[in-house]
């Protein structure tokens, strides 16, 4: 990739390109999701130390997706990536019930960020392939998503491993952004 392609991705082309930020706790499955979006192999994925960027073509949009590591010590750096974000994807490990509170707190903080004000948010309730996973409706209720009134939002049940629910999420993203551009 090199530094030069970072600059090329930084270029603003507001008509066609969307800058999408992919956040969530560590081990939520952000990088796996990113690779599935880019139709890449997901067999060898390790915790993300820094970030990954991939461009995905979908329905006339070029989605530049920034996947930032979710470990606690990296989270303070999320804010470096807030500017010019068109859409936020927040990934939750639906089977990790012990950390629902922590993930809820992080999400609330993100939604309070000035630089992300009004940015639509898509919440992926990931790992639906695991037997112990909570349903999307359960999570929506637990996180009190219905109280979000300052932006468009959607919760989508999915499994990055099986691919289930991903297409629906991408469709919601392009539809939402299409409406906003008009």
């Amino acid at each position, binding site marked *: 990739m090199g*530094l030069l392609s970072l*600059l090329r991705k930084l270029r603003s082309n507001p008509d066609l390109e969307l800058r999408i930020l992919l956040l969530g706790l560590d081990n939520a499955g952000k990088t796996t999701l990113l690779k599935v979006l880019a139709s890449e192999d997901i067999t060898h994925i390790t915790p993300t130390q820094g970030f990954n960027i991939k461009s995905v073509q979908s329905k006339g949009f070029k989605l530049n997706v920034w996947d930032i590591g979710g470990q606690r010590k990296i989270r303070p750096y999320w804010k*470096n990536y807030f500017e010019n974000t068109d859409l936020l994807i927040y990934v939750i490990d639906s089977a990790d019930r012990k950390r629902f509170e922590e993930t809820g707190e992080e999400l609330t903080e993100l939604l309070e960020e000035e630089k992300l004000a009004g940015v639509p948010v898509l919440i992926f309730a990931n790992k639906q392939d695991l037997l112990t996973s909570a349903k999307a409706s359960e999570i929506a209720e637990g996180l009190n998503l219905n109280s979000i009134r300052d932006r468009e939002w959607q919760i989508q049940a999915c499994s990055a491993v099986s691919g289930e629910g991903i297409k629906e999420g991408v469709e919601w993203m392009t539809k939402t952004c299409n409406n906003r551009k008009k």
Partner: protein
Amino acid sequence: MKLKRFLLRYYPPGIILEYEQGGVLKTKSIDLLDLSPTTNIDQVVEEITQKEPLITPSKVEQVKKLVARLQEKIGQKEDHQFYLFKVLRAHILPLTNVAFNKSGSSFITGSYDRTCKVWDTSSGEEIHTLDGHRNVVYAISFNNPYGDKIVTGSFDKTCRIWSSESGKCFHVYKGHTAEIVCVSFNPQSTLIATGSMDTSCRIWDVEKGTDIANLTGHTGEIISLSFSSTGSELITASFDHTVSLWDVRSHKRIHTLVGHKAEISSAQFNWDCSLIATGSMDGTCKLWDRASGRCTATLKAHADEILDVGFDCTGQRILTASADNTACCYNALTNQQISKFLGHEGEISKITFNPQGTLVMTASADKTARLWDPETGECKQVLEGHTDEIFSCAFNYEGTTIITGSKDNTCRVWR
């Protein structure tokens, strides 16, 4: 005019004359770019004395000794094997650029973690963390040869100047309306130039901390810039497919180099500033005559985008690095290909000669940096160990130490 003393410059070979004129101390340089170990010393010195009135007959013997010293230095056969000296867990997020001071005693690293750090090369210890930018620190530089100041350009749209000794921030330069992605001191260390994604280049005063000029005219992002070796001219390379040559004093555009069919990735002067080399995403490298602004050659050895170009210190050879995983070396006079460097398994994003011109270093997405013989194209060494792609690499002035900066958040020192 009265000659005070001689100074030697090894890379590129030259003799600097320090002299007094009207009570003011001045310097001028005699460049010996064609000097080789077999050159006839008497002949060289005779040519110098004919051209240079400061070299009186009484100085001839001394000049001969100096030329002999230069010849000896050039003739030194370097067969240095580099080994991994230190791994520095430099930053919490990926590194951007790295740079040495002239002696190589310290170096700096920029990072996505918003800081620039100053390191002691021999101990591997962190001397200072330059903290203050509110976004990625992308472009960094020492004011070599002095090395007492550091400039940093950030995605936060500002540029800062720091003391390399105390780590104190002298000035914050505000004015750009988008990310700053390239910075440079002029050779006298009195000015800073910054290039930005806002398509403009600005010139700033080092001492006063003020804005001197805003060079506008590009229609695309400026991603590379460099001063000529005298500091009187500046080139800016842009994503608008062109390169501009500016007069630093009048702030006027002297030439626009038009001809590439895609974004420019890099633009460099040769030492005497007679030539400019440009690399482009269109897969070609072009050479331009600086005086006329005309394209004199198009080098087409690559199957994909060219990501970096560079001259050797005397300006006699040119390097190109490409996304096709290969790199090339050319003769700058004949434009003939001298060698091709084959072996990398990923894009080559950076390429540079050592100051001596005896080795070429490439940095690649395949997580390695490699050292090559520029004459034969033979790979002399593979610097392995980084666990993610290498974004940047540099030699110190002596060519004895290498630093590599990677997306894996570490920096490695090789000696």
